[in-house]
């Protein structure tokens, strides 16, 4: 299977690999997928005044999964948390020219955004003083 240039670029030079303290109140963490399925993505967003300031990821998976998560860390930066939720898997798949068998990687990336935002939101409800 031939990978697209963009997948190779993100695989070889992944953007924003790393981790934040998952207990910090300004961090939202999304952990999606399962080792048994061959894909696990962890996406973390750092939010200030409702804007995603920074994002980091770690991914266990194929090149397309790594590329999908790398791409979304770039895309969510500077967006409000609600804007981030509008990113659709199909945009990721098109951007990376993913073949049909790899569409699930982009679906997982979309899920990761949703999970990270939800985690952040639930932290705010539980910490109203913040």
């Amino acid at each position, binding site marked *: 299977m031939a990978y697209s240039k963009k997948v190779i670029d993100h695989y070889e030079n992944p953007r924003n690999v790393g981790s934040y303290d998952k207990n910090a109140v300004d961090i939202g963490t999304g952990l*999606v997928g399962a080792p048994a399925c061959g894909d696990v993505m962890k996406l973390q967003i750092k939010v200030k005044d409702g804007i995603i300031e920074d994002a980091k990821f770690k991914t266990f998976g194929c090149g397309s999964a790594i590329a999908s998560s790398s791409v979304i860390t770039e895309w969510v930066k500077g967006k409000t948390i609600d804007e981030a939720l509008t990113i659709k898997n199909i945009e990721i798949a098109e951007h990376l020219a993913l073949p049909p068998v790899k569409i699930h990687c982009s679906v*997982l990336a979309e899920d990761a955004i949703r999970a990270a935002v939800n985690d952040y939101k639930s932290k705010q409800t539980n910490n109203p003083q913040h």
Partner: protein
Amino acid sequence: MYGAGFTEDKRIKSLMLRDRKGSKMDRLLETAQLEERVVYLDYQSTTPCDARVVEAMLPYFTEKFGNPHSRNHEFGWQAEEAVEKARAQVASIIGAHPKEIIFTSGATEGNNLALKGVGHFYKDQKNHIITCVTEHKCVLDSCRHLEQEGFDVTYLPVQKNGIIDLEVLEAAITDKTLIVSIMAVNNEIGVIQPLTQIGNLCRKYGVFFHTDAAQAVGKIPLDVEAMNIDLLSISGHKIYGPKGIGALYVRRKPRVRLSALINGGGQERGMRSGTLPTPLCVGLGEACAIAEKEMEAESAYITNLRNRFYQGIIKNLEHVYINGDLIQSVPGNLNLSFAYVEGEGLMMGIKNLAVSSGSACTSASLEGSYVLRALGVEVEMAHTSLRIGIGRFTTLEEIDFAVAQITREVQRLREMSPLWEMVQEGIDLKTIKWAEH
């Protein structure tokens, strides 16, 4: 000794380098050259034709092009002589008589012919077949077809190391059992089944014993008499011979009968009609002759490379696990799981190495390796596996290069792996509630 022009040079050079301990510069140059090509470490998938094999075949494409079945002229006689010489060479490597060798298109056809041929011939007397869950797809699929025709098939499980339990086999044999089909060497994990013991059991109960020896011929000693093997499938392209040719050994005493799958002019004693491809038969024969002659030395050479590879890997990396068995296996097949790194992702990073992965994502089916699952390898570990295939033309430099490439890439991907991070933090991955998708 080890043929094949370009690779021959590499081999000699590698042997020289091994002896000249001080020549670091030469080694560096060698490694620099490796960076620019893809190192072949997938010898279970196929092998290059040995230059000596190609040389033996060439005249039979052009000046000696006769039909080996033409009885009336020199062209036919010449071709027939070549085919019969090849038949004897094939027979020799498994301790058979030349008349017991049927040329086929490969091991897939051999396995189909053995199972369906015997099944169809004896179906009114016995209708039970015993095979094993880790067999090659062509055996399993042939069995499925026979099940649809009314046969009962028992699929034996394997132990953790991939080897069948002889007691389980014996318990599965009934008075309806016609044939037991157990592969000699597994294609994914390289384990060797206890052929002699299986043969003894089969003989004791009057059951035919077929073995798919595609991965075993030329790698381990085989003797159809000592092992009580009744049918044995051989593939040309797995033993440095050409693709498109193989053979099936069919015992004459006591006689094994089978119904042909391909009908026609009655060639190959009526068991496989069709004009024999003389050059391919010659190639298979020559490949067998070379393998028989060099097996011992080659096995020692490959064992050395395999050990060097494995030692290099476990020195550099932790959490690397062997799938299969390091002792009861052929040395050229090493199947390893690199925990917390997904196999396809890893293969993308080691693009200078041609290896195979047990990861689901590699195949179109997305279901993962059924062989690894049969060993009880957890699905998540199966996703992290690579099969390293070492063969006749692999060099020491290629092994060192492979160790370096795999080490670098596994380390890089682990730094990127959320699973690795969790394990480093002391989290038990089994306690996480994963959302399976």
